[in-house]
């Protein structure tokens, strides 16, 4: 226990709390919190669906939970079931084999719901495109509110996408 506490003390707090180091990032983090609080009463619940990615986009979604981004600290939580979710975060081109599962997940998510498509693949089908095995972009299968490009998009870009989706929902 002593070693754990010592290591925690040595590490200190890494979360990039609205810092002065990077103005544009700070705005993202803070506005996100305000929007979340205003519209989701302190808790935005996201269900991630990998619809056929190369798994690169998942690396960055997972990175959102590391101490630097600490996405849960902003009131955003990844949940285990679409029935608990306000938003679907969808990665990959949609493989034909995931098409049904994605549709069902969408239907299982209660209204009002938001969809953010992630990565070049989610936006356009990316390098995999459309084929006998791939439906291409996410919006070919379910309605999409916001699409975040990048291969994979960096964690801040993903946070920005989530924020944009919340604003779209307001109007």
């Amino acid at each position, binding site marked *: 226990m002593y070693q754990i506490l010592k290591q925690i003390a040595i590490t200190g707090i890494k979360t990039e709390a609205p810092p002065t180091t990077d103005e544009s990032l700070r705005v993202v983090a803070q506005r996100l919190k305000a929007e979340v609080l205003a519209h989701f009463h302190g808790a935005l619940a996201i269900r991630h669906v990998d619809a056929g*990615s190369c798994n690169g986009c998942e690396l960055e979604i*997972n990175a959102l939970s590391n101490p630097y981004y600490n996405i849960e600290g902003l009131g955003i939580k990844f949940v285990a079931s679409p029935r608990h979710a306000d938003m679907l975060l969808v990665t990959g081109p949609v493989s034909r084999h995931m098409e049904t599962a994605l549709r069902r997940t969408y239907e299982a998510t209660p209204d009002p719901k938001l969809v953010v498509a992630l990565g070049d693949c989610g936006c356009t089908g990316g390098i995999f495109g459309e084929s*006998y095995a791939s439906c291409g972009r996410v919006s070919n299968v379910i309605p999409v509110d916001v699409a975040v490009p990048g291969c994979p998009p960096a964690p801040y870009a993903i946070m920005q996408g989530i924020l944009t989706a919340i604003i779209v929902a307001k109007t």
Partner: protein
Amino acid sequence: MRFEDLQIQVTQLPGAMPVWHGCVDADQWREACLHVRDAGGRLVALWGTDDTDRGAALCVHVALAWQSRLMVLSLPAAKGSYPDIAAIFPSANRMQRAVHDLLGLRADGAVDQRKWLRHAAWPENTFPLRRDFDDAATCTNGVDAYPFVKVEGEGVHEIPVGPVHAGTIEPGHFRFSVVGEGVLKLEERLGYKHKGIEKRFESMTLAQGARLAGRVSGDSTVAYAWAYAMAVEGVTGITPPPRALWLRALFLERERIGQHLWDLGYMGNDAGLAFGLAQFSRLREDMLRTNAALFGHRYLMDVICPGGVARDVDADGIDRIRHELKEIVKTVVTLRAIYIDHAGLQDRFVDCGRIRQDHAARLGLGGLAGRASGVACDLRAQIPSSPYDELGLNMVVRTGGDVAARATVRADEIVESLRLIERILSNLPSSDILIQTPDAPEYAFGVGWVEGWRGEVLIALETGAANRIRRCHPHDPSWQNWPLLERAVLGNIVPDFPLINKSFNLSYSGQDL
């Protein structure tokens, strides 16, 4: 040269790794596999091609690691079938079924003839990798029925999980047959992410293919990009400048460290120690930021290209990496000790999800999971291509075969990779980092073979006219290890599955293709 006394004529392919290629008939096909297995060799990959447009047949190929070299044997299967080798190498089972789904070639005598990669996206008698397959005519989604193995008996019930899972992981279906909480059987169903990668390659030039190769399994982008580049360099007969090769090793070891840090964090987290995830994922984020600052991409995608590498490192960059290494070594050593001393963690890790050494060897467990079960295989040590021949890897091997052993192998490999990186940085040769790739001859065959963080990644590449890809088969080590995960959970309880699964951390995308 002759392949032993089997009367098989094989010739060495140009390239960085010792790869030999020969054509066989059906009898030699089986005999060669038996011979390699009995001599302690292993199955690396199995795939098919369609050469009917060249007046030849459908063809099946097997890559066997045997006595410090790779033997690629090709069998023209005029009658649409070839002798089963799953009875010799159990890991061939799913590969053979995938060859049937994609090309319509059957393994004669195979016990398991169920489909594997095909769900409902294309009909049973249509084969996407055939030359005459019309990609524009997409097939309508049908109903997908898969004959799972039924376990029956008093008190047995089934728990189906997925394809969409509770966490941020890739999709796949797991069917547990349980009594109470104990697992009697686990059956995996994969293929959900099949997005036609191999067909896609065939629409690309050799240069374009590099990007796609780096996206077969994003978490192993460096290993794939290197293997692909190696294959292209083989068919075009070039050797990248020495500095490029040393930088590739730097990238590969950084990828390994990054993934191992991540897995160690998540294994701690899945066993209830969130502290571990916070600590390890912080170190990893530091590395990703260094990657972005020095090499332009957090995961080093597209940094390796045929002919060399796209990014160099200067003296300041080397200083930054050195500084970071010191921090990682110090922290990993501390965290490793904390993990080992943590009674709650060890209670979950030790004896959990065990693969015994004899099973691992017989069933073909590979890569880091293999090394945690006493299978001492690592290309970097056994068949080192430049610069590993000069770096001298100390292979990490443990025999426990449980979650604890897989955690230890990771922690020790991090320390070893950090040592390699220090050697790379102090001995980095000065030269160009990229040379031009000349035109490739048509119908040339090349192989790339690289020890990624998960295990050995193989790329088998055949050229078409005008520098185009005629066929490219990427092989992920997950093919070999997925079936062993089914075995690892036997006798464990269902709630331990996420931890066991994480301790393997296999690629869905890499095997679904």
